[in-house]
């Protein structure tokens, strides 16, 4: 599980782990909790081009539907098949095994720090 304090965040409740030119993206524990039990995840495929702020996937719970936004411009290098097969990983380990996509990017936009995101969700 990633160290939450060193991750970066978006206002759409995604976390971003940057390693070189690849960003691993998931949704935060706060977002997973708000959604309830996740029962279906739809993710883009490797090779898909994504644009920052655009919807690239869906995360459905029994109660509602959440959208996954790309936090950066780039190309999908991998999506997490384990989460597609077992969507409950988004609830049980949102910062770890519940990661969603890895995106190769050219430049990184300004994202939120842990402190800024924590302030946003009031925690």
């Amino acid at each position, binding site marked *: 599980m990633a160290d939450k304090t060193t991750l970066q965040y978006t206002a759409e409740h995604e976390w971003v782990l940057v390693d070189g030119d690849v960003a691993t993206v998931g949704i935060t524990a706060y977002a997973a*909790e*708000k959604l*309830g*039990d996740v*029962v*279906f995840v*739809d993710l883009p495929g490797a090779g898909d081009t994504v644009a920052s702020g655009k919807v690239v996937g*869906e995360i*459905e*719970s*029994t*109660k*509602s*539907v959440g959208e996954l936004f790309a936090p950066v411009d780039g190309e999908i290098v991998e999506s997490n098949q384990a989460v597609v097969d077992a969507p409950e990983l988004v*609830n049980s380990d949102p910062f770890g095994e519940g990661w969603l996509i890895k995106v190769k990017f050219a430049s990184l936009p300004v994202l939120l720090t842990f402190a800024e995101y924590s302030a946003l969700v009031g925690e």
Partner: protein
Amino acid sequence: MTEERFSPLHQRHLGLGASFTDFAGWMMPVRYSSDLAEHHAVRAAAGLFDLSHMGEILVLGPEASDALDYALAGKLSAIAIGQAKYSLLLARDGGIVDDLVVYRTGQDRYLVVANASNREAVASELRDRSSPFDCEVQDESDDIALIAVQGPRALEILREVPGVHVADLEDLKYYWSATGHFGEHALLVARTGYTGEDGFELYLAPEAAPALWDALLETGAGSGLVPAGLASRDTLRLEAGMPLYGHELGLETLPVQAGLGRVVNLKKEGDFVGRGAVEAGPDEGARVLVGLAAAGRRAGRAGYVVFDSESEVGIITSGALSPTLGHPVAMAYVDPASAEAGTELLIDVRGTRVPATVVSLPFYKREAI
């Protein structure tokens, strides 16, 4: 917007780590841990629900029966003391003001249980409609808490709860109620519910509710009882094919469209509000409520449009991936031509058309005991 209201069990919910949602102005638990775990617990063992937001309205007096026969769609004078009846409060044009459970608690005494969002409307309509009769209408909602214990193990749990005294609980039949005590407090125990399982609804004074809640949780812990929130309540009632006011029922809907024609008693003597409109029936081609079952995992949800191979034929009013069945289910209003069981339709799930089949309701029915 009026001030947020809190259940007499609010401190208990906080202590259990509940997430909350606004429901008709009330802060109510949406889940304690997991919607799915709570749902499965109710199907397999038991769940404990706080329903203190619901409205409880007393109708009492020598002509209470006559007043309710006129005010509601059912024949309430025909039920026995102790019996309960699902009924509807109709508008003059036949639209549904609310769906209700009515308990006859005495010869001249009825308890009408209304949806939280319709409490004022129901109390006000009952007052107006009963004014020619010798009876009184009292909105007791603030003085009555409601706890439900639902699931196949509900009976074995409730009968062991220390302090709960109800004679012959085992023999209480479905849709009957009995009076008893919890400690020094009066208790109305009803074998009713909104989950499709066996279970009980317990009405008592708000000040006694936290102690009863604690006693139920403690007694039931070894039997798999868990506190359950409104999220699981919604998927449970959906699987059981039970309508929810504001989704399947509303002022624009005639009972027969919602499959509730049987709830309206046209054989009863005398007039009742909405009778003429119900007898006239809905307009030709009016949509009717059906069940839809789909494959895969992507559920159609309230507001999603339903198509046949060519054009729009309906709209979903409730839908979810059924936790018990493992596939998406929905209730939808569709054109009569598309309403027959077995009809193949398409649900527009955010731009993708997903095949679905019309099925008869309910989606889930518990095994007979």
